[in-house]
């Protein structure tokens, strides 16, 4: 028989290498090659190749069983060793698990929060095609972003632009008084919408027909909660409710409560045409006051739609100007056009912004997520540090495993496995912690999460990945470090805690403390900014002042009410205003004055007030006089402006100058000193007051100091006497003011929680390291004591190393904190100074906490009897 050698396909070689048992791989491969050659020479290459493939396939099940079998055996051993290690070093395990659990709990909460933020508006079935119409206005080159639109825009653009399949308007008709039998409540959650609203959005009705529910002019859709509130067990459908003591509404539908993660939040829907009854002008293209929501065709081109909306609105306003102010038409046409655009409804929560700045929620999402990751990272570093520090204890095991044939990858797998297991144990604790603290977190975040929120599949998946990532990150360094030991050296006992790993540990500790100090400094400054804003001199007196919204037809009783209150000594002063004192949210362009640069366009805030407003709010005049009944022209043509507008007008004193604004060609009678009429976050903008006692929406009342309660009781009884059919409802100006800073207050509280956690976790780690070092140096300390070292000397010896690290961490953290905080503060028009002593103070705080942690251990070892120390082997 002539035998000839035939080479097997490469592929087969590779597969054999992989599948065949390591010990016999070479011989078996030889056998296969021999048989292969034989088959080739007898039956040809194809048959042989087929045969070899068949052999490989048949090998697979056996291989699988074999490897699983061995894996199970080894896994059992790994698990055993892991648990032995955990229980043998209870202290270290405790530090690791607690640290990781705290860090993970942080992450879980933030994940919950981020997922909630991301889920806004996603529940609409048509979410991909829903948009909100927004606009950019331009004032002397600056862009002012507005999310409200003209009232006739919705129907107008739906008719003219084929890409828009549907449109609805959405606005609040103000707070309404609802009365059903004996029950009467103010409802501020009312929204007026077009009938198409229910078709476009996903707000399912439980009762009633969504197609016709809003067709009748006085029909009403209420939420389940409202239905419970008014009707309890009755069937709400078809029931009549009186609105503002004037209109009879019929309930035509009951909808499910609007979910928390909806930007459109409401409890009652009324037909949009109802606004006509309330006296709103419905056909002005020049005023922006309501939301317009549109549904676009799937294939619509967004830039084209934007352009079309811009053009349509421009055409309408141009027509209006031509009819009413033909002389202004040229100027109108020359000015830069207001640009309209559509914003996807799914993005408005995170990417929506307003005004001159581009403040978006997504920025908070980023900040908070990064901080949560920092805290987790600090916990991971603890794990790495303790694992490498104690590597000497594991070195023998590694050496022995290598000698009996463990490959590096087995060891890497083992150590990763250990850290992942520990991470999952920590996850269980973290979850328990989250369950316990969910109430506090809700308070901190202002959300309403329930415990079940942790158990939807997305979140469970998220948790598992957090644990996996934590395990992998914290296990990475120990795994690579420990698995690289050379068995000979280790078993000979040559391994001491190497200087290389000591350096790495130092870097890690410095990182931990840098992050902690960064958080402490940030917390301090965010808090200072909050206090700064809350205690800023506003230019008016917000204490001892209440305001009462004049709802429905109560405005008609404003004058007699004011008279009645003013006569009494229990009230210092009374006035009316169009906007609440803390927030004048109405503004308008198109002002004119003598000597105005025709190129310039200014957005001026406006407020209609009553006489005495300046006096009631205790604002100061910079020039001229306040409004006064002694001048008969005041109610028709007088303006009071603020210093900012005077500055823009370029006048030394604007008193007695002409000002054309709010549709009136008038005279400036006084200039009021600048005061903050919005959040201190924003700069003071130009403002003009007019006297219009008949069109105020709020009543402001200054009460005497000391007898607030009594005075409020008096105001209440007076109100009930004059306006018996409307409940009395009042707010404190200073509380309304504080409420504006809820966002900052929340961030401040959140940061404080994070900072405390970070420091606690970092100190846990430091404590672990310190006790490890002390343990290692037991002998040295013993010898030193025998030779006459004092206890304070020993404490100093053990603490100075750690002190050095924290000082280095400070030096790294300061500039970073400075840059980050400067960036954050840039969004505020009026900001607290980045004073140096807060940096130093935070550093010292971290240092003191670290020293306390370390010295606890140091003092213990300093006072041990040297005889015990030296006898320990």
């Amino acid at each position: 028989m002539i035998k000839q050698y035939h080479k097997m396909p490469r592929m087969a070689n590779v597969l054999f290498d992989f599948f065949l048992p390591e010990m016999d791989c070479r011989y078996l491969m030889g056998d296969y090659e021999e048989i292969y050659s034989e088959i080739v020479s007898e039956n040809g290459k194809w048959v042989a190749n087929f045969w070899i493939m068949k052999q490989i396939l048949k090998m697979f099940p056996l291989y699988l069983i074999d490897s699983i079998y061995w894996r199970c055996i080894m896994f059992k051993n790994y698990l055993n060793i892991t648990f032995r290690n955990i229980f043998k070093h209870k202290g270290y395990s405790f530090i690791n698990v607690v640290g990781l659990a705290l860090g993970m709990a942080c992450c879980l909460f933030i994940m919950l929060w981020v997922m909630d933020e991301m889920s806004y508006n996603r529940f609409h079935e048509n979410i991909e095609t829903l948009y909100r119409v927004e606009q950019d206005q331009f004032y002397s080159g600056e862009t002012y972003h507005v999310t409200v639109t003209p009232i006739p825009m919705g129907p107008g653009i739906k008719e003219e632009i084929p890409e828009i399949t549907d449109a609805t308007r959405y606005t609040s008709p103000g707070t309404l008084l609802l009365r059903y039998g004996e029950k009467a409540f103010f409802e501020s959650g009312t929204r007026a919408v077009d009938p198409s609203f229910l078709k476009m959005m996903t707000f399912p009705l439980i009762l009633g027909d969504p197609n016709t529910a809003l067709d009748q002019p006085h029909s009403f859709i209420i939420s389940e909660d409202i239905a419970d509130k008014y009707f309890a067990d009755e069937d709400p459908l078809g029931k009549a409710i009186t609105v503002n003591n004037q209109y009879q509404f019929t309930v035509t539908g009951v909808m499910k409560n609007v979910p928390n993660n909806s930007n459109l939040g409401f409890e009652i829907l009324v037909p949009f045409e109802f606004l006509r009854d309330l006296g709103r002008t419905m056909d002005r293209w020049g005023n922006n006051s309501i939301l317009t929501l549109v549904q676009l065709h799937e294939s619509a081109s967004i830039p084209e739609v934007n352009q079309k909306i811009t053009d349509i609105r421009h055409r309408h306003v141009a027509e209006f100007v031509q009819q009413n102010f033909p002389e202004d038409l040229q100027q109108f046409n020359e000015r830069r056009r207001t640009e309209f655009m559509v914003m996807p409804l799914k993005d408005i929560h995170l990417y929506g912004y307003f005004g001159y700045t581009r403040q978006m929620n997504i920025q908070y999402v980023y900040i908070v997520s990064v901080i949560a990751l920092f805290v987790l990272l600090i916990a991971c570093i603890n794990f790495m540090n303790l694992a490498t520090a104690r590597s000497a204890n594991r070195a023998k095991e590694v050496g022995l495993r290598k000698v009996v044939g463990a490959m590096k990858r087995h060891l890497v797998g083992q150590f990763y496995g250990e850290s992942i297991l520990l991470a999952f144990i920590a996850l269980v604790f973290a979850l328990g912690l989250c369950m316990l603290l969910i109430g506090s977190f809700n308070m901190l975040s202002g959300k309403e999460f329930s415990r079940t929120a942790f158990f939807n599949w997305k979140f469970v998946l998220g948790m598992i990945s957090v644990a996996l990532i934590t395990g992998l990150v914290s296990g990475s360094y120990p795994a690579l470090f420990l698995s690289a030991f050379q068995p000979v050296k280790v078993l000979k006992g040559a391994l001491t805690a190497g200087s290389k790993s000591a350096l790495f540990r130092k870097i890690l500790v410095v990182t931990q403390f840098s992050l902690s100090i960064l958080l402490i400094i940030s917390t301090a400054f965010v808090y200072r900014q909050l206090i700064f804003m809350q205690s800023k001199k506003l230019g008016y007196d917000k204490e001892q002042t209440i305001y009462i919204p004049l709802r429905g037809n109560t405005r008609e009783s404003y004058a007699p009410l004011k008279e009645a209150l003013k006569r009494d000594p229990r009230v210092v002063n009374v006035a009316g205003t169009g906007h609440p004192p803390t927030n004048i949210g109405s503004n308008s362009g198109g002002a004119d004055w003598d000597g105005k640069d025709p190129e310039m366009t200014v957005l001026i805030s406006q407020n209609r007030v009553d006489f005495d407003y300046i006096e009631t709010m205790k604002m100061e005049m910079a020039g001229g006089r306040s409004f006064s009944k002694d001048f008969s022209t005041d109610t028709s043509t007088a303006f009071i402006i603020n210093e900012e507008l005077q500055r823009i007008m370029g006048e030394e004193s604007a008193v007695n100058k002409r000002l054309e604004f709010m549709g009136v060609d008038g005279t400036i009678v006084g200039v009021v000193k600048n005061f903050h009429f919005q959040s201190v976050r924003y700069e003071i903008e130009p403002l003009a007051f007019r006297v219009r006692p008949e069109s105020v929406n709020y009543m402001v009342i200054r009460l005497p100091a000391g007898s607030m309660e009594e005075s409020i009781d008096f105001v209440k009884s007076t109100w009930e006497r004059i306006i018996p059919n409307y409940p009395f409802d009042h707010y404190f100006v200073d509380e309304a003011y504080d409420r504006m800073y809820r966002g900052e207050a929340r961030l401040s509280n959140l940061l404080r929680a994070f900072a405390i956690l970070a420091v606690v976790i970092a100190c846990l780690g430091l404590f672990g390291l310190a006790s490890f070092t002390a343990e290692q140096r037991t002998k040295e300390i013993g010898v030193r004591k025998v030779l006459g070292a004092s206890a304070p000397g020993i404490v100093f010896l053990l603490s100075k190393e750690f002190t050095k690290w924290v000082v280095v961490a400070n030096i790294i953290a300061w500039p970073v904190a400075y840059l980050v905080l400067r960036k954050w503060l840039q969004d505020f028009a009026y900001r607290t100074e980045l004073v140096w002593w807060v940096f130093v103070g935070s550093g010292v705080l971290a240092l003191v906490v670290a020293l306390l942690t370390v010295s606890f251990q140091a003092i213990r070892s300093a006072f041990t009897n040297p005889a015990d120390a030296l006898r320990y082997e």
Partner: protein
Amino acid sequence: MVLLTRQEEQILLVIHHLGNTAYLVNIRSLLKEITGKYLDVGTIYVPLKRLHQKGCLDTRYGEPTAMRGGKAIKYYSLTAKGYEALAETRRIQEKLWDGVRFPALKF
């Protein structure tokens, strides 16, 4: 006492027949000659390994040859324990077969 499976018994016997040159390939071809069927390599390798573990077989390594892509041969030979096992198996077989009369088969 080692009890052998049918396959182990066959393989041990084939190794005995092949004398001291038995290795996987010629075990396989001899089995084919006798039984008429080629077995998979794995089907022979696994019992070989098991028998080796049980102490019924000795192994030694030959020289690498070109025919095998430069890989050495692993030869198998019977140990005393192997013979014992074979003898025991045979004893049991004979006992089992003893006195077996087939019923008259009708064709």
